[in-house]
């Protein structure tokens, strides 16, 4: 019945249908990753300004203690994921490969690692402004991938009235199942979070958008929704990139966010389901954002798993917990296979945006030989933002940055649907990405 209804679900146009590869982990219950000896917490793992360290080398820290304060309004806090001692503050490997300022913490092996909270926070009676400052203190960021500090979304402009709160449970990236597991295992926590945000915003309706390939999540949430609340679960077609915020708003509400405007300008706020659960957890236990859900999967992993991992755990330890990498592993990605970042060194830590650790073998990493573009138009029919990727790639290759700007390169969200669909093996999104970063660099210097 679900399969048939897939055909008739309203959705965004274009997009692609990659194989999902979620079976490896979709049914595996979440496990907690044990504490390890060493944690690395980069100060800049969110959008905006880096956090400022509030501890010094040698200092003892408790689990959940603030170790870095927000560096600006668009910035957030950082807490120790473990009780131990600050070993150093200095340059450490970031997942992307470069070195970044980070706090290194040595765990106290004999500590109980119990979270000690002075008092449980209460959301009832908070104004939206209070909520914003409370959120900045929790260190929660958008967990869908962009890592925008969550409080930024809720500091609304004057006169904006939110009608729809959307919980994004699409999880359209192949392999990843961490949001799926959260929705199956903790529907009450998600609904508690929605209740908090819905009430604080005074929203009219709250919608949980879930792709149809997670029927167990759809049923379990459907059963838990209180009948007197204006909450509903909206099953969505399985299509990439369904989890892109503008695409999901198009699918759910049939609203196309005009270029240059934010969803909030149209009375819509969207958060990832895991973000909402993190908010609920904070108000339940007072726990700031120190653990995250990570899907460890892919053909190079011995024992795939859905894990709760303390932030800062080195990727090497996570892999070791999952039985290590298979010998034929060629590449490890942090995040999903479509938009994730390749990991240059296994010393890099789990950060707030690490939704997955995926190991791939030569079968996935082998690049087809690039042949000339034959203008087949498959990328044009794949691009969810209705751009002309073949043209963008051509301009990026020729480094014609003025023309590429005119061709609306700024609208590209780098979802990778174009590269996926190109039969000529042209790395379209990679070319666009490098042109964009080169243009950013130029602007910075000017």
């Amino acid at each position, binding site marked *: 019945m679900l399969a048939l209804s897939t055909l008739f679900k309203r959705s965004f146009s274009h997009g692609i249908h990659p194989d999902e590869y979620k079976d490896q982990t979709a049914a595996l219950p979440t496990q907690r990753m044990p504490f390890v000896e060493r944690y690395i917490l980069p100060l800049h793992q969110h959008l905006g300004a880096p956090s400022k360290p509030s501890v010094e080398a040698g200092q003892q820290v408790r689990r959940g203690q603030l170790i870095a304060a927000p560096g600006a309004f668009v910035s957030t806090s950082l807490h120790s994921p473990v009780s131990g001692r600050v070993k150093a503050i200095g340059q450490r490997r970031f997942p992307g490969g470069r070195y970044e300022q980070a706090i290194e913490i040595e765990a106290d092996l004999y500590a109980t690692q119990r979270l000690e909270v002075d008092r449980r926070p209460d959301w009832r009676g908070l104004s939206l402004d209070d909520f914003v400052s409370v959120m900045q203190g929790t260190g929660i960021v958008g967990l869908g991938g962009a890592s925008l500090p969550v409080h930024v979304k809720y500091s609304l402009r004057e006169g904006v009235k939110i009608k729809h709160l959307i919980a994004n449970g699409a999880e359209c990236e192949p392999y990843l199942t961490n949001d799926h597991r959260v929705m199956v295992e903790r529907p009450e926590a998600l609904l508690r979070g929605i209740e908090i945000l819905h009430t604080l915003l005074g929203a009219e309706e709250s919608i949980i958008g879930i792709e149809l390939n997670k029927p167990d999540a759809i049923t379990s949430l459907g059963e838990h929704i209180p009948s007197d609340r204006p909450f509903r679960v909206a099953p969505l077609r399985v299509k990439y990139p369904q989890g892109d915020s503008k695409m999901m708003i198009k699918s759910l509400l049939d609203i196309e966010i*005009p270029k240059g405007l934010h969803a909030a300008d149209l009375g819509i706020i969207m958060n990832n389901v895991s973000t909402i659960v993190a908010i609920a957890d904070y108000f339940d236990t007072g726990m700031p954002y120190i653990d995250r859900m990570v899907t460890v999967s892919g053909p190079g992993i011995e024992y795939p798993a859905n894990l709760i991992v303390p932030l800062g755990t080195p990727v090497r330890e996570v892999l070791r917990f999952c039985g290590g990498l298979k010998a034929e592993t060629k590449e490890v990605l942090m995040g999903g296979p479509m938009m994730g970042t390749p990991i240059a060194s296994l010393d890099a830590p789990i950060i707030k945006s690490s939704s997955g650790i995926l190991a791939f073998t030569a079968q*996935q990493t082998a690049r087809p030989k690039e042949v000339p573009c034959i203008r*087949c138009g498959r990328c044009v029919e794949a691009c969810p933002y209705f*751009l*002309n990727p073949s043209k963008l790639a051509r301009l990026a290759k020729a480094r014609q940055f003025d023309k590429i700007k005119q061709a609306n390169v700024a609208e590209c969200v780098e979802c990778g649907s174009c*590269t996926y669909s190109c*039969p000529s093996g042209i790395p379209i999104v990679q070319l666009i990405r490098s042109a964009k970063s080169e243009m950013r660099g130029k602007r910075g210097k000017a």
Partner: protein
Amino acid sequence: MQYKDPRLLVQPSPLLKQQMTTHQTMRDLLFALLPVTFAGIWLFGFSALLVVVVSILGAVATEWLFSPAEQRSARLVDGSGVLTGLLLGLTLPPALPLWMAFLGGVVSVGIGKLIWGGLGQNLFNPALVGRAFLLATFPNAMTTWSTQVSGEGFFQWYPSNFALPFMQPHYDAVSTATPLGLMKFEQQSTALLDLVLGNTAGCIGETSGLLLLAGGIFLVLRRDIDWRIPAGVLLSAAIFSGVLYAIDTGHYPDPLFTLFSGGLLLAAFYMATDPVTSPLTPRGAWIFAVGIGLLVVLIRIFGGFPEGVMYAILLMNAATPLIDRYTQPRVFGKE
């Protein structure tokens, strides 16, 4: 535990890729054309095989000669030279002198593709460039149609095939007219069944309507070609000729005749769909296809030639950059 890090690639995402490749598409096209080619050889005898093979040779030899040494083998296996040669061969009359077929192959790849910068750069369909060149240069040889042998006399060939270069080919009395020629100059119709099965005079690969249709549907189902183009070409040709037929049934051919006569099916499925020379966007593809259908009907009925498919496609090829410019997709969230 001894634990050694593997050497990791740092290759940016996305790592997933759909299976279809450009080479596979070319191979599919060749497969789809095989039945048509065999039918042409059966219908027109050994000569047809010679013409097709020689035109492929001309195309491939040119490709090989003008490719940089290190890319030669790669370009030969990418199949686009073979495909161009085969498409050209299928649009030639079976009694064509072989040296002309060879020259056609050379012009197709040389003038049709390579001087533009190779695969993906050319404005006009290479096979049709070669054919247009032959038609303009050797109008007689290109419009001399032989009667069919249909398996009998398979090994008898036309003496004209072996005419020496630049000598007047000798034709014997077996030449006849194509259904379109009969229609245009003698107001004589051909039975639909003959058109569908290919029992008519014409180019080697254009007569067997059913096989062309079957191969085309295979390509559409494999998503090797954009379905909008054959659909648009055939629909618009049928509708425009249908309108004329409705006005004067005695004077104009009926739509089914239009669809199954001449090279329309071959062109709609295998030539107009060449992605390089057709518009990029779905909307552009419709405009392009409808334009071809309209031009085919106009040229066939009001023009001086009995057949207009080749010029229709070449004209719309020329319009493709313009169509592309005006059918750029509307960016999401922009009015």
